[in-house]
């Protein structure tokens, strides 16, 4: 039997991140194909039920690293924990969710193990016992197939690209605590404070629906109509680079080559003309709806549905129509 697949089970105070469940589910699928097994690593200071849950998605063994030094994510202690788990199970592959911290850790663990990580992978193939992975480059303008020349394959999985298995709560697995000593060298970075967003925002990279506004919004005050539509659709709010550079929206809302790459079920582009850098960041959305005054705007070339018109009339009308529909 080949060596196991190790999964970094990212959790927040003991609650598994969606991306961690997707990674466990994909690891299970791969381990079935490779006839190996899935080992989960859970790191934190307050693990709650997080050590039990990986079994529900197919992990046969769970390693835990617990302690005050692991309460907040910082690169060095988490890397040390991952390397300890690697030395324990000698996995052929290590999977991470490609969340912000997951990608940070995947790169750092790769460095510690003398190799490179495959980041933001969108599919993995295990035919013939060799892992190859596909990942977008140039913000999605092209896709490459890559393999690791050195074991282990270190892979982060782009959120929403892998199906989360249904949880089977009858399953249990062996849990083993790993002792990882943290010294002063690992603690040169200290988390002082966590600043939450003012309102509970839906993460762009995890959102099922995104409503985005661009240069056509004409000013920050008009985003109210975008937010109203987003609230009805339970959507995240995004923005084009033009809107962010104009200071109308915060940088973390930017979708595109120098912002976030997103793949929601539906992307509603309001007053966005569709520069190549923006299209790169959102064109893997399943359904694109464009509302724009200019019938020649490039956004209409990628949109599944388009309305040519004034967004200040169309967006509120759309919000009203959806409300009617729901009510």
């Amino acid at each position: 039997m080949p060596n196991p697949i190790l999964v970094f089970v990212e959790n927040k105070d003991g609650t598994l991140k969606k991306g961690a469940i997707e990674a466990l589910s994909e690891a299970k699928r791969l381990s079935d194909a490779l006839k190996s097994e899935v080992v989960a690593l859970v790191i934190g200071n307050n693990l709650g039920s997080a050590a039990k849950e990986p079994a529900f998605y197919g992990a046969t063994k769970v390693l835990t690293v617990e302690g005050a030094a692991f309460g907040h994510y910082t690169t060095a202690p988490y890397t040390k924990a991952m390397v300890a788990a690697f030395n324990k199970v000698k996995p052929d592959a290590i999977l991470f969710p490609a969340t912000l911290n997951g990608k940070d850790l995947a790169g750092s663990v790769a460095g510690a193990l003398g190799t490179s990580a495959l980041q933001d992978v969108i599919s993995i193939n295990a035919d013939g016992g060799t892992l190859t992975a596909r990942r977008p480059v140039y913000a999605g303008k092209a896709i490459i197939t890559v393999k690791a020349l050195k074991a282990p394959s270190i892979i982060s999985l782009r959120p929403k690209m892998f199906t989360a298995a249904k949880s089977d709560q009858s399953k249990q697995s062996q849990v083993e605590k790993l002792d990882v000593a943290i010294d002063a060298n690992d603690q040169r970075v200290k988390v002082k404070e966590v600043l939450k967003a003012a309102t509970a925002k839906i993460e762009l990279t995890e959102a099922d629906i995104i409503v985005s506004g661009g240069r056509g919004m004409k000013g920050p005050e008009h985003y109210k109509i975008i937010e109203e539509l987003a609230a009805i659709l339970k959507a995240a709010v995004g923005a084009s680079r033009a809107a962010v550079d104009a200071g109308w929206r915060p940088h973390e809302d930017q979708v595109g080559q120098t912002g976030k790459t997103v793949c929601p079920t539906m992307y509603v582009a309001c007053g966005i003309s569709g520069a190549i850098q923006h299209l790169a960041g959102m064109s893997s959305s399943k359904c694109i709806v464009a509302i724009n005054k200019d019938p020649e705007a490039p956004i209409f070339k990628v949109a599944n549905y388009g309305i040519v018109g004034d967004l200040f009339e169309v967006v509120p009308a759309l919000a009203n129509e959806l409300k009617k529909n729901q009510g």
Partner: protein
Amino acid sequence: MKIAVCIRRVPSTETTVKVAADGKTLDPAGVEYIVSPFDEIALEEGLRVKEKLGAEGNEVIAVTVGPAEAATTLRTCLAMGADKAILLKDDKLYQRAPYEIAQGLSAALKELAPDIIFFGKQAVDDDNSQVPTITAQLLNLPFVGLIVKLDLAGKTATVQREIDGGKEVLEVVLPAVFSAQKGLNEPRYPSLKGIMAAKKKPMEEKAANITANTLEVLKMEYPPSRPPGKIVGKGVEAVPELVKLLKEEAKII
């Protein structure tokens, strides 16, 4: 204080990607190259730190791994205000995996021994987002990625970094490695005076020290093409039809 900023020469974000005849790489014909946009933010931060501390005894050094043509990219950095530049020559840059590039950079950075090393959070061509953290690993330095704010007090930096759903404040002991996220600052344009001055600034060239080989690209392809778009109609009158299509055809709402 010595500040090193690691730069990557990338195809302009305006580039329409064409796959080369080998089926694995970008066809470089007609491609214009720029400083990777996140690296511009990193360089701007380096320049601002120096400006705050004063010119005396403080310097900003731009470092890159790349082909001979990357000297042009470094000249742009010098024109923006970097004091000197180091080109670690490597003709295979675009076939190199992150570990290899970090290996080349860290060998040179070890000699330099900077107090701060800045990177952009990712290069906008290979989108690998890991050279900064691997470099930190190889140099045994603390690392904080995705910073959007930086304050210095002696040998300690207080930074804000982006996390999923918010930000956090961290305290870091220098020397340290940081990667810059959009929002940290607005990079300046090179001034005419800067461009003239850049011609006289020192640029060191030496071979990049790279021996590792960690990844192999097997294929590069285009993303699946989208079906031709459909204009539902004009103005508010088209809204009911759009909602109907989203409900019955796309089955999204």
